[in-house]
């Protein structure tokens, strides 16, 4: 086959890949067609990669094959992580994505000079800056989520000023390079400064804001890929990058809306520093707590039960016990549904994935608005390791940091039961008036164990 023909086939396969990519996302929109979406995505990727290997420019294969195998070797284990580790895995994958984008941009520069045009330099500069900062930023985010690094925001005076001037420096270096691309020593400087900025950007952000940050980094990673597409004039990259970028962007917007917070507040608010003050104020008021046995009794007596899971269920890995509880109750003809807050847990859709993992049918998982309209007719609202997303202060207390955040109105249910280990606040670090209501029962204990006990009570024998 002639070179020209090969190139045409590559072009064609890229176009097909673009169409399939779009269909992949289109089909992901509903669980019924989602897996088909993944399939066409895989086909598209295979097609594009396969075609590229035949590109006449590619002369040395040995190492490419080897590194592909290495890549697969890293990818497969990363694809098998526990569901609770998905947030850090996602962060890590952004890091990888940004890394390769940056690497390619850098390579382009050094291969290109002295023939890099100013315009091309501008594209490369922007691409490498975004790629680099996304790389280090995502690493930090992953570290915080994996709890290798301190969760809580690390802040010092005038830090926003420092970070922003570092960013400014990176941009100035890029501009200098555009003016005269012929200064190889400026380029490494720009890379280093950008890497530093990534660190400074994410370190001061609290662990619980990481999900928003991840999605933001997600869109950065996407846009750096798109920019790379500009640099290499490869439209497949432009499209894939644009899709990824808009997805990350939309998700972070959704999260901010669901937390009633602005981007700037997330990025520079240094949210989630421990604020014991309010928590202390709690002690005065009285709290009613109950045993697993009592809880089981109340549940048995109910007709409609709504379970509201939260971050606590994730850390306790309680989803399978929750499934057992779900079975035990439905067996008794009790209508059990789950109220999923958009930002329950530590990433969008976190709870859905965990509960699906435990084989709970997804048509039992209700979105916030649906469930809120039913809660007044609900006998028991059982909260498992959720806190902020159920905090009525968001509705009532103008002073509260989460005021205005839409919540699940569990307090409207006839009886409220809350499984958590202590009176400690959630990530927002604020007290939850819910716990002091007359129709609220606190069930103190680890989510997994406590739910387990309730199940044992329900299955007759409480003897242990």
């Amino acid at each position, binding site marked *: 086959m002639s070179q020209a023909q090969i190139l045409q086939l590559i072009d064609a396969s890229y176009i097909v890949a673009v169409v399939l*990519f779009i269909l992949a*996302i289109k089909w992901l929109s509903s669980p019924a067609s989602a897996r088909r979406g993944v399939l066409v995505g895989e086909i*598209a990727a295979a097609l594009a990669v396969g075609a590229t290997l035949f590109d006449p420019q590619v002369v040395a294969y040995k190492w*490419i094959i080897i590194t592909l195998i290495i890549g697969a070797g890293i990818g497969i284990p990363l694809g098998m992580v526990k569901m609770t580790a998905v947030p850090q895995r996602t962060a890590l*994958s952004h890091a990888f*994505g940004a890394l390769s984008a940056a690497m390619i941009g850098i390579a382009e520069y050094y291969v290109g000079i002295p023939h890099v045009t100013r315009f091309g330099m501008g594209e490369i500069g922007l691409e490498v800056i975004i790629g680099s900062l996304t790389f280090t930023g995502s690493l930090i985010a992953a570290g915080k989520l994996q709890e290798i690094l301190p969760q809580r925001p690390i802040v010092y005076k005038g830090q926003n000023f420092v970070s922003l001037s570092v960013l400014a420096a990176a941009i100035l270096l890029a501009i200098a390079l555009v003016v005269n691309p012929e200064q190889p020593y400026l380029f490494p400087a720009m890379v280093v400064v950008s890497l530093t900025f990534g660190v400074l950007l994410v370190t001061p952000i609290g662990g619980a804001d990481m999900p928003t940050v991840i999605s933001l980094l997600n869109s950065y990673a996407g846009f750096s890929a798109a920019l790379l597409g500009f640099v290499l004039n490869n439209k497949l990259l432009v499209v894939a990058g644009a899709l990824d970028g808009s997805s990350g962007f939309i998700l972070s917007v959704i999260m901010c809306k669901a937390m009633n917070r602005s981007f700037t507040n997330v990025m520079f608010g240094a949210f989630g520093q421990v604020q014991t003050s309010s928590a202390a104020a709690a002690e005065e008021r009285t709290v009613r707590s109950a045993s697993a046995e009592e809880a089981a009794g109340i549940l048995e007596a109910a007709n409609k039960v709504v379970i509201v899971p939260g971050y606590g269920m994730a850390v306790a890995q309680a989803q399978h016990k929750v499934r057992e509880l779900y079975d035990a109750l439905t067996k008794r003809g009790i209508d059990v549904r789950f109220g999923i807050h958009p930002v329950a847990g530590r990433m969008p859709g976190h709870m859905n994935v965990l509960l699906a993992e435990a084989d709970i*049918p997804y048509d039992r998982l209700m979105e916030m608005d649906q469930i809120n309209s039913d809660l007044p007719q609900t006998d028991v609202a059982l909260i498992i390791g959720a806190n902020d997303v159920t905090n009525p202060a968001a509705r009532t207390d103008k002073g509260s940091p989460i005021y205005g955040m839409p919540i699940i109105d569990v307090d409207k249910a006839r009886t409220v039961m809350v499984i958590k280990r202590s009176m400690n606040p959630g990530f927002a670090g604020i007290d939850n008036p819910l716990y002091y209501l007359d129709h609220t029962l606190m069930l103190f204990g680890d989510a997994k164990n406590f739910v387990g006990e309730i199940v044992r009570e329900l299955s007759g024998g409480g003897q242990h």
Partner: protein
Amino acid sequence: MPSDFISNLYVFILAGFVGFELIKRVSPLLHTPLMSLTNALDAIVVVAAIIIAGRHETRLSVILGLIAVSASFSNMVGGFFITDRMLRMFKTGKPKKS
């Protein structure tokens, strides 16, 4: 502005609109798989990495290219893998639907 840039800009803008319209309609149920899928698609930068590494121009470009190959390919493999794993977990109560 070189004409390549212009046409890439068109592609970028249009793809942005497509992404926006499609993604804002993805059910919250699937937001986590959505993240991992778009990751996997984004990993298509591997094609660029393969070319950079394959062109075999300078030692530096080859090394950087190869790093990029494994980094992005691991994303591709891992991303598709975990997405499908998650989706396999989603089952409906009513017999046959997904």
